[in-house]
């Protein structure tokens, strides 16, 4: 067994202005292993890998590749050292063919033809060897996301990378694509390649890695064998304190239906049926979680209830019908009737990023009488004061109403949206992906706010693709698959495995 590390980093430090992204990091990655690097957003994982790939220059520290001290001033040097990187956002030329993308930057000579011919032959071999088949003549934009990712891996292999770094590779993949990716990675490892997998998903770390390093606030807090650890321990290492994987809350006190949905169907612009006659209800004082793989109709459900997508069926709010055709009811009238909405994509639907926090804080409620100075003008001073108070209560940092929304971190942006919606004291709160891209500290706060609203007797519809979140936050869970409801469970009497099966559309053994 070769015990020279494929990669060894010694004392790597990197600052961006006052922010120290990497602090004295040392790590050893053995050849022929899958090494996971896990940490929260902003823990410094991506910075570390960018240093390894020559995107940034470290302020201090040394890099050893297979025992050799190596300088990596740019990507060219990283490629020469046998390092390949698959970025979270692919670096592909969309209207080039697969072949052209693979060859780009690694051509054999000044003329293209011979390079392309050689690449074609090599791709066929690689495809056979590692389950990486892609049509070499297909244009990138015609490929699915999973296939595009294969092209990125092929690019690295074509450059004869021995070390492959993948940055959050499953974020954009469907579960089956992710499984396929992991099979590929295991195959590559068995061929002797070294793989570094950056992720924030504990489950992936447990599934595929051999060793795992944990980063927190720019520091490497631990490196352990995956077989000798467990998710709970890793989570604690990531956050630096005991983490409550379940939200602290008292049992729900349901007090009668607030929302009743019957036979709700949606056909989208392309004629595809997105919701196929679903029924459910939510009581006041209860959180209903909608679990499911993204794209199974949850987004459409939120859009229908939020008032910006037409549907058929019936929806009753506090026993009164809501018009679903869109002709008599829209986002504004829904809000007036007590439906608040925290959209799934806060940056596109929840905020106007270039506008300031105080402007964002009233969107959707800007017609409210307390914000009007006269029939013509808005009372900006009142809005600012109001915003300031809300920012205090929701611990938005920095608490500056005049700051543009885009200058807040993801967690603080979400707090702005949440403050806007929750502070109106709605009867029904629709929340989509409340903690996507939000740090654990802010996640706890957001969860507490949602639970507090529930405890005030309000109804909450929670849509999330994170099963952990659904399990810990919701009181009752329905699982959606292909526009239908596959089943309903009580949160305290189900588990990930059972929900996972339902999410995959498997109904066997369903009660």
């Amino acid at each position: 067994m070769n015990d020279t590390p494929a990669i060894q980093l010694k004392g790597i430090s990197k600052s961006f202005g006052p922010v120290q992204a990497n602090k004295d990091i040392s790590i050893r990655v053995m050849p022929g292993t899958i090494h996971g690097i896990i940490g929260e957003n902003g823990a410094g994982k991506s910075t570390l890998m960018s240093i390894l790939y020559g995107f940034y220059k470290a302020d201090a520290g040394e890099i050893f590749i297979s025992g050799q001290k190596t300088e990596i001033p740019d990507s060219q040097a990283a490629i020469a050292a046998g390092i390949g990187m698959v970025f979270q956002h692919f670096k592909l030329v969309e209207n080039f063919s697969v072949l052209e993308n693979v060859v780009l930057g690694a051509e054999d000579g000044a003329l293209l033809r011979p390079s392309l011919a050689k690449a074609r032959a090599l791709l066929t071999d690689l495809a056979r060897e590692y389950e990486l088949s892609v049509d070499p003549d297909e244009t990138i934009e015609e490929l699915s996301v999973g296939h595009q990712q294969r092209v990125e891996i092929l690019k690295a292999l074509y450059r004869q990378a021995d070390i492959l770094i993948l940055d959050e590779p499953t974020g954009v993949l469907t579960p089956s694509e992710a499984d396929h990716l992991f099979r590929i990675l295991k195959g590559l490892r068995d061929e002797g390649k070294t793989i570094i997998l950056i992720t924030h998903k504990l489950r992936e770390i447990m599934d595929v890695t051999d060793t795992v390093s944990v980063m927190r606030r720019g520091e490497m807090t631990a490196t352990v064998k995956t077989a000798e650890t467990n998710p709970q321990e890793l989570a604690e290492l990531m956050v630096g304190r005991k983490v409550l994987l379940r939200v602290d809350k008292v049992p729900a006190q349901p007090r009668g239906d607030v929302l009743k949905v019957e036979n709700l169907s949606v056909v989208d612009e392309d004629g595809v049926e997105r919701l196929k006659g679903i029924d459910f209800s939510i009581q006041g004082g209860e959180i209903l979680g909608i679990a499911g793989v993204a794209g199974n109709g949850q987004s459409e459900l939120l859009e229908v209830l939020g008032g910006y997508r037409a549907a058929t069926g019936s929806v009753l709010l506090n026993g009164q019908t809501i018009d679903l055709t869109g002709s008599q009811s829209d986002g504004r009238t829904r809000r007036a009737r007590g439906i608040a909405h925290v959209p799934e994509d806060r940056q596109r639907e929840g905020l106007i990023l270039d506008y300031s926090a105080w402007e964002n804080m009233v969107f959707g409620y800007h017609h409210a009488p307390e914000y009007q100075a006269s029939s013509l003008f808005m009372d900006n001073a009142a809005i600012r004061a109001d915003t300031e108070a809300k920012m205090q209560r929701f611990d938005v940092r920095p608490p500056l109403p005049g700051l543009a929304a885009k200058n807040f971190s993801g967690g603080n942006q979400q707090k702005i949206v949440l403050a806007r919606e929750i502070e109106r004291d709605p009867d029904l709160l629709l929340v989509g992906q409340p903690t996507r891209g939000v740090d654990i500290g802010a996640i706890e706060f957001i969860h507490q706010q949602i639970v507090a609203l529930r405890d005030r007797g309000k109804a909450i519809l929670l849509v999330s693709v994170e099963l952990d979140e659904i399990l810990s936050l919701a009181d009752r869970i329905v699982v959606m698959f292909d526009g239908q409801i596959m089943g309903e469970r009580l949160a305290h009497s189900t588990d990930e495995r059972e929900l996972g099966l339902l999410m995959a559309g498997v109904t066997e053994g369903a009660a």
Partner: protein
Amino acid sequence: MDFGTLLQILDTTVRLATPLLFACLAGLVSERAGIFDIGLEGKLLAAAFFSAAFAAVTGSVWVGLLAGILASLALSLIHGLASITFRGNQLISGVAINFLAAGLTVLIAQSWFQQGGRTPSLADDARFQEITLPFADAFSGLPYIGQSYSELFSGHSLLVYVGFLTVPLVWWVLFRTRFGLRLRAVGENPAAVDTAGVSVVRLRYAAVMICGVLCGLGGIYLATGLQAGFVKDMSSGRGFIALAALIFAKWRPWYALFACLLFGFFQALSFRPDVVETVTTVAIPGQLLDALPYILTVVILAGFVGKAVPPRAGGEPYVKER
């Protein structure tokens, strides 16, 4: 209309299309690399002036050629500096270059030659002479084919032939060489090029410099081929028509050739209102013909004739993201 008149119009078309073609190919190379260049007009003008000025003073068209290319190159490097190195707004930089060239050429011309912002007329040696192709005279007696050969294909200045040969050359470089692949990639997604270990900055500078040389040739042809000397604003919007042709051609070299020939043809027609009137039996004002390239471009942009998709990273300075 007889065949002779047709040949005359086509001959004028070729001459008028040449500066458009140079400018259009120049813009094509630059924009394919992601640098929009609205300053083609200014470069044409600068090259026209400096080539004419140096040719007039030295009496050598070759010195004029060199001066013209250097002038245009200098302006493209300013554009490169502004838009690549300093990541400025490419449209603003281009507009500035147009103003700079329009003002400076006249100012310097007046200061050097005191002829009201023009250069002295160029003597024959200071111009690109018409080249008579072999056997042109011998074939001129043959109807149609021979006539076309001697009147349409023969008898242009060197730069016309260079211009038309540049079309296959640009096509070959863009689509058959490593450099071309990288150049097109950098105009579509510079991040892909960067992560592949290739310098985005160097590629874009290369493209901008090629643009400068090609555009320079267009301007030089204006002053030393098409005319004999520089006069104020002699490019008269050709840089913009070339941009229109570029969009019309959907950023492809062969299409660019046809677009430039078509637009050149309109310009040639506007010189012969008599012919247009005989053929169409209505009097069409020359201004309408002059405006046709722009009208056609608007039609193209409105999506009536297929879709013209510019290079995706066009106009955007490249900044490495975290």
